């Protein structure tokens, strides 16, 4: 199946910006560059939407516009945190007003499936719609569902996305776990040799199509993910490549999810010295930060690399085959295999 179009609201303004002049961040987090939402969303609807809903809806609408598709056959969404700002507002009022006088809007929109549902409402799309909340494999679950629908011919086109946001409270709580660098910099995030990473957020949507259409960005050959696997990750990767009849040497580019945390970077480096040895590689979390659905940003980046033939920060021939390897919190390894089409 094919990635017909892909769009991300992320800390980078666009793929062109990523190629020419990637946005750099300092501190402990990266924040999304948000588009002019009035281009995508009715102003009457915007007022009620929290930031993550606007980001998701805008990414989905732009993705559909680029594909010139008005009605997908299904919508699947992955999110670990859901609509945090609405959840925060609802719970805060619940405490402040002693469980009375609660705002219905924040309550209604605090559910994890609000982004997927809002997209369906805007499109008047009554087709299959599912949201996956599986921590570090939420996006992978949404993508696998989309691929299954297309594979079984239950759908021809599926809009699939991964969304997660940072809010002040969640960031403060996560910071207590010593996850982030105190004075990080995206310029030195990877390979800096210090513990911690930088937090990130984003909304990336893709239109998957069972057929190759004019303007399709890439062919999505295979996706697989695991949770706390009992066998070494290197073995999983070797089996994945063997199953898909791909020799490691035929991969032109490896995109890894190394997030710059020196406590875990060694695991990525060890794989690059073994199963990935000799494969040119780049990282992506210096562009989007670390979050549970960050692999959606990697897929967006890979699709555009194959679509344009250009790799951010790298000169050379256009890659024809890309492998993405992410391992969120060293518990959720996932692999994506893509090729040019």
């Amino acid at each position: 199946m094919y990635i017909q179009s892909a769009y991300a609201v992320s800390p980078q303004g666009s793929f062109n910006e990523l190629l020419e002049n990637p946005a750099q961040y300092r501190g402990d987090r990266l924040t999304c560059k948000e588009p002019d939402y009035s281009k995508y969303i009715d102003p009457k609807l915007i007022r009620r939407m929290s930031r993550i809903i606007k980001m998701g809806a805008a990414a989905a609408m732009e993705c559909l516009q680029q594909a010139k598709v008005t009605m997908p056959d299904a919508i699947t969404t992955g999110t670990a945190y859901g609509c945090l700002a609405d959840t925060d507002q609802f719970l805060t009022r619940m405490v402040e007003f002693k469980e009375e006088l609660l705002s219905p809007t924040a309550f209604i929109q605090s559910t994890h499936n609000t982004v997927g549902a809002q997209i369906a409402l805007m499109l008047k799309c009554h087709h299959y719609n599912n949201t996956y909340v599986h921590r570090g494999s939420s996006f992978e679950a949404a993508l696998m569902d989309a691929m299954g629908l297309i594979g079984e011919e239950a759908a021809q086109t599926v809009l699939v996305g991964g969304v997660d946001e940072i809010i002040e409270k969640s960031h403060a709580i996560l910071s207590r776990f010593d996850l982030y660098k105190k004075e990080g910099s995206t310029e030195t995030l990877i390979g800096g040799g210090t513990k911690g990473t930088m937090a990130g957020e984003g909304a990336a949507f893709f239109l998957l199509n069972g057929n190759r259409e004019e303007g399709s960005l890439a062919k999505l050959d295979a996706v697989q993910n695991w949770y706390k696997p009992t066998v070494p990750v290197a073995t999983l990767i070797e089996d994945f490549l063997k199953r898909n009849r791909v020799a490691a040497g035929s991969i032109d580019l490896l995109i890894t999810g190394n997030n710059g945390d020196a406590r875990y970077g060694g695991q990525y480096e060890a794989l690059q010295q073994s199963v990935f040895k000799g494969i040119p590689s780049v990282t992506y979390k210096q562009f989007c930060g670390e979050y549970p659905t960050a692999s959606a940003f990697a897929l967006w980046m890979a699709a555009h690399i194959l679509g344009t033939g250009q790799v951010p920060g790298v000169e050379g021939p256009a890659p024809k085959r890309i492998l993405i390897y992410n391992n969120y919190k060293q518990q959720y390894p996932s692999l994506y295999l893509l090729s040019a089409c």
Partner: protein
Amino acid sequence: MENKQELIHRLKEQIIKQLKLENKRPEDIGDHDPLFVDGLGLDSIDALELIVLLQQEYNIKLRSAEEGQDVFRSIDTMADYILEHSA
């Protein structure tokens, strides 16, 4: 209790804030403009927000959902209801 005109102005400010009508100012909302559909364009979720606003700001609980249809017809009818039911 403030006079009706002062109440109407304050009510408009509270509605703009509660319903996040960010591109509206109090003077943009006519006292007799319908709040729903054609006028301000509010919907059923906004109606729930208005019920919460009445309770939170004026300690007034609507007796029934049907009553809301008359109370929330316009800012003017809301102000009358508040004046009538304020202690």
